[in-house]
């Protein structure tokens, strides 16, 4: 079912037979995906396909009912967001998960504040670190002292990404990273993602936008109704074939020309 990645070596992340159910409804059923260093994996599917629930088991926000997670080939157990962070897994949520009333440095360090030797918050060091990371990612960003609610969508996305970069994320989960952004800001975020990929970070990107996925992803995993339809190399498939996977749940080799035509109805 899964098309084996052509990359060699141990995957950065391997999720095997993950299942999550909410009161009898299988949100995720026996799904296995993997992710290699320096790779962007697009995770696509319609509403309610189980994409977000699947990655939440990796980011520690949702407990899986069954399944195993391997990081660098080692089995790990992830029971909380903190566990995930300790393993180098950073998540950028669709909602961005920022404390709107606080400034960029506070948000970057939320839950992992830098402290002085007297056990108090070291705001100056945090601001300094934030300025340095942001200088690398988005040099135009200068609003370090205002609540993030007054920032633009792209700037807020920068804050979320800067947080992941500062804490040396090896695995980055991005849930709809460009959904709330304008065209210029989308370009900026895409640029950032390529930059992170160059640095060897593995990225799992959830997206509704098939163009985004084709532009950025190396491989594409498709989910439908909680199950994995399959994983394909982007270069081996057409957009229509991926759409067929998303909508009717058939792999490129199973789908008929007639069905492909019907997609365009």
């Amino acid at each position, binding site marked *: 079912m899964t098309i084996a990645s052509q990359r060699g070596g141990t995957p950065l992340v391997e999720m095997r037979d993950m299942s999550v159910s909410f009161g009898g409804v299988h949100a995720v059923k026996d799904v296995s995906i993997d992710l290699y260093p320096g790779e962007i994996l697009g995770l696509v599917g319609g509403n309610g396909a189980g994409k977000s629930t699947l990655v939440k088991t990796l980011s520690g*926000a949702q407990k899986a009912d069954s399944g195993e997670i391997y990081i660098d080939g080692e089995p790990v157990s992830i029971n909380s967001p903190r566990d995930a962070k300790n393993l180098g897994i950073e998540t950028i949520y669709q909602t961005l*998960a920022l*404390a*709107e*009333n606080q400034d960029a440095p506070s948000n970057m360090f939320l*839950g*992992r504040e830098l402290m002085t030797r007297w056990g108090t*918050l070291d705001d100056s060091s945090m601001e*300094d670190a934030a300025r340095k990371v942001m200088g690398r990612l988005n040099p135009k960003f200068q609003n370090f002292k205002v609540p993030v*609610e007054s920032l633009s969508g792209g700037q807020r996305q920068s804050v979320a990404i800067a947080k992941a970069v500062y804490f040396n994320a090896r695995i980055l989960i991005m849930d709809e990273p460009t959904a709330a952004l304008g065209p210029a800001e989308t370009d900026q975020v895409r640029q950032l993602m390529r930059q992170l990929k160059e640095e060897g970070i593995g990225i799992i990107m959830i997206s509704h936008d098939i163009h985004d996925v084709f532009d950025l992803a190396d491989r594409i995993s498709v989910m439908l109704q909680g199950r994995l339809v399959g994983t394909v190399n982007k270069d081996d498939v057409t957009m229509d074939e991926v759409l067929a996977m998303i909508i009717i749940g058939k792999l490129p080799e199973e789908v008929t020309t007639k069905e492909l035509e019907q997609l365009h109805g």
Partner: protein
Amino acid sequence: MSVVEAPPTQSDTLEPGPRRSLGSYLRDNEIDTRMVGMVVVLLAIWIVFHLLSGGTFITPRNLWNLSVQFSAIAIMATGMVLVIVSRNIDLSVGSMVGTVGMVMAVLQAEWLPPVLGAGNSWIWLISLIIGVVLGALIGAFQGSIVAYVGVPSFIVTLGGLLVWRGFAWLTASGRTIAPMDPTFQLLGGGSSGSLGETGSWIVGGVACVGIVALLLMGRRRRRKFGFRLRPAWLDVVLGVLGCAVVLGAVWVMNSYYLPENLAIRYAEEHGIPIPEGGLQIPLGIPYPVLILVGVTLVMSYVTNRLRFGRYVFSIGGNPEAASLAGIKTKRTIVRVFMTMGILVAVSAAVSIARLNAAVSGLGTLNELYVIAAAVIGGTSLSGGIGTIPGAILGALVMQSLQSGMVLIGVGAPVQDVVLGVTLVVAVAIDTIYRRRAAR
């Protein structure tokens, strides 16, 4: 209460260079324009009442009494800021003052003396400590129901409002408990419950050194990291203003003298000869105000410098983000209510010490004054926004209005009307201001 934001002046359009209002200039230099506005409003209230009352408002006597009266509410308002910032509310604080105050009173008047011996010098401290522990326990109990069971804090503390009022009555079957331990009484201010002249000047001096040290440390830290510094003149102005306010307040407190009959008795007790023209013994800073200053320092430190404070604000800003960041939000909420409970106990101690008695109705309606003080002081009921100094200024604005109206002979019903209208108007102005600022 309201924010004075200087409108862009006409000359801005004529002069070259960036267009900037005074407000944005101050904000750029990390000065809270909202607080500046509140101070202006407070001064306006004082001046108006001073004129209306024929010059009796801005007098040492009135300001001294005002400071003692507002302390009990202001102490609790600092805790209410954290409660409201965390998207909760505590309606039970008035009734908790009743229960905790009653327990502390009964302890020192009836329960402890037979055990420890009447007049034992530890009675006041043991009563106070038990009161504080009780306040913390009640707070933690209510907070746990909010955080772990998931009952909205409005309901939990509405229940608490009834429950603790009931316990206040049950503790002594509705009797009035008096008198308090002589040492304990000092906590309430009064003729002997203040620092005296020399002590007050020392406290004022220490405060000035502290203000200057904070400003210098801030500059040094910013320079170390290469951040933009405030213009030096602005820091000098802030330092001078801060010290002037502190020393001015001490001077006012020291200008209020012990009433003549008490002064004569004091002189006789201490064998001081009474000079020509009467004896003038300055009272200095009353202990309730000193307690309030201490509470303010501790609460500001907790809010701004500790993880706990930052987490409270994060939870208020976005509870989901806070828990995704790995913050133990439930434990934090319990601690917020516990802090509130401790401050209730401190406030209750001040109140019973001042009254020199405890009655089962002690603290009735305090919850509303405390919430109003926090809200007038800029705490947003939708959570995430609020400051400790703001809440104290809010309490001071309310007490000033009330005392002022008493001075000019406004009846109690009209006082209530004015306070109620003030609350709504203050929040309305704030809402409009925030909406404009957000644009």
